């Protein structure tokens, strides 16, 4: 790693102030950022840890019935604490491994927006609201392609609000080496329709499968899932061709619907 200055503020305001410096980087649990820095693929001059900010920790219920998760809440804490939204708790409990879940945070995952990460599928599939120090961003506006989000420089995720659906399920088919999602599909059924979010598959990063959403909104059953989407724009690598990923999108969507029903 290149060396850097380290700060661990205890309030969001102090964190935002610390991140105003050029080349400063926020550090959530560090489970992606630190390995990246070890490979010298990132070189922040200052690292601002968000783990000491108590106002960004924890799971609670919002007034509108949504599950609200502090941006610095670990996956383990969500898995244990989001019982009001079991599909989301299960997603968090399936990320990485226990030691990774003990450090990794929802804010860190969403800010990074790895194209194979689980949380982006959960947030997009739930139509979550990403709350930052500056504003509230709808998930549909937030994800802007792999490793790209609506966040501005120095903006940090303080909270994520997940509306609780009538039924939901996340199906992850693991890439055999990294155990990230080769393809992951998050299906959530709300009163006003069904949302289907896909991670791992597309070169555009996490995205909604609208054809499936329309079909499932009309008939929420595995049989209603349409044929696999086209392979154009799907990721192709040594673990799976574009066609294989497209095929898995449909398979996992069916399984998610069946499990949620």
């Amino acid at each position, binding site marked *: *790693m*290149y*060396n*850097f*200055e*380290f700060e*661990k503020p205890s309030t969001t305001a102090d964190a935002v102030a610390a991140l105003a410096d050029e080349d400063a980087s926020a*550090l959530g649990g*560090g*489970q992606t950022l*630190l*390995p990246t*820095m*070890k*490979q010298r693929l990132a070189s922040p001059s200052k*690292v601002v*840890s968000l*783990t000491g900010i108590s106002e960004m920790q924890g799971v609670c219920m919002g007034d509108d019935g949504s599950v609200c998760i502090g941006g610095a809440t670990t996956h*383990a804490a969500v898995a244990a604490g989001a019982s009001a939204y079991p599909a989301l708790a299960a997603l968090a409990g399936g990320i*990485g*491994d*226990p*030691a*990774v879940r*003990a*450090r990794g945070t929802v804010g860190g995952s969403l800010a990074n927006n790895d194209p194979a990460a689980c949380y982006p599928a959960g947030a997009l599939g739930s139509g979550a609201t990403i709350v930052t120090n500056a504003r509230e961003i709808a998930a549909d506006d937030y994800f802007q392609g792999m490793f790209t989000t609506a966040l501005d420089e120095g903006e940090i995720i303080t909270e994520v609000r997940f509306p609780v659906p009538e039924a939901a399920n996340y199906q992850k088919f693991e890439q055999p080496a*990294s*155990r990230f999602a080769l393809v992951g599909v998050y299906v959530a059924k709300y009163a006003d329709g069904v949302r289907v979010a896909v991670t791992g598959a597309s070169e555009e990063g996490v995205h909604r499968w609208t054809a499936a959403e329309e079909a499932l909104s009309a008939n929420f059953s595995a049989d209603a899932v349409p044929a696999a989407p086209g392979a154009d724009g799907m990721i192709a690598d040594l673990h799976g061709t574009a066609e294989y990923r497209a095929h898995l999108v449909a398979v996992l969507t069916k399984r998610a619907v069946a499990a949620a029903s």
Partner: protein
Amino acid sequence: MSQVKLTVNGKEMSGDAEGRTLLSTFLRETLGMTGTHVGCDTSQCGACVVHVDGVAVKSCTMLAMEADGAAVSTIEGQAADDGTLNTLQQAFQDHHGLQCGFCTPGMIMSAADLLKSNPKPSEAEVRHHLEGNICRCTGYHNIVKAIMAASGQDVSNIAAE
């Protein structure tokens, strides 16, 4: 350089660290506690697992400064002062749960973390919990068996003693 203070296995210890100093490096190089091993640089092998404030983490993927003020528990602190192995360590010896020994510190620390929250795990639960701990020697057979035995379960019917 800043000073990092830790309580390691019940003893207060301190040393200087750069921003980039990892907790694993701090333990091994600064404090001379080489029982914690580093087997990869992508946060997957788990040889470096220690407990920070009672939670199992990968010490190669945590900055030393992040741990400032924390209680850290490592493999060196698992046996009794007179060297008597704890239940889990003893089960690993009894059931040949290690060969070269390099992944063993992380395996023990991860397994201890599991048994704390799940005192009688099933085989599937043990295997799932070890998702982040890679062993190249044992094919995992005797590791899983040792952990189940340490939890007080009868493992005599598991194939191949």
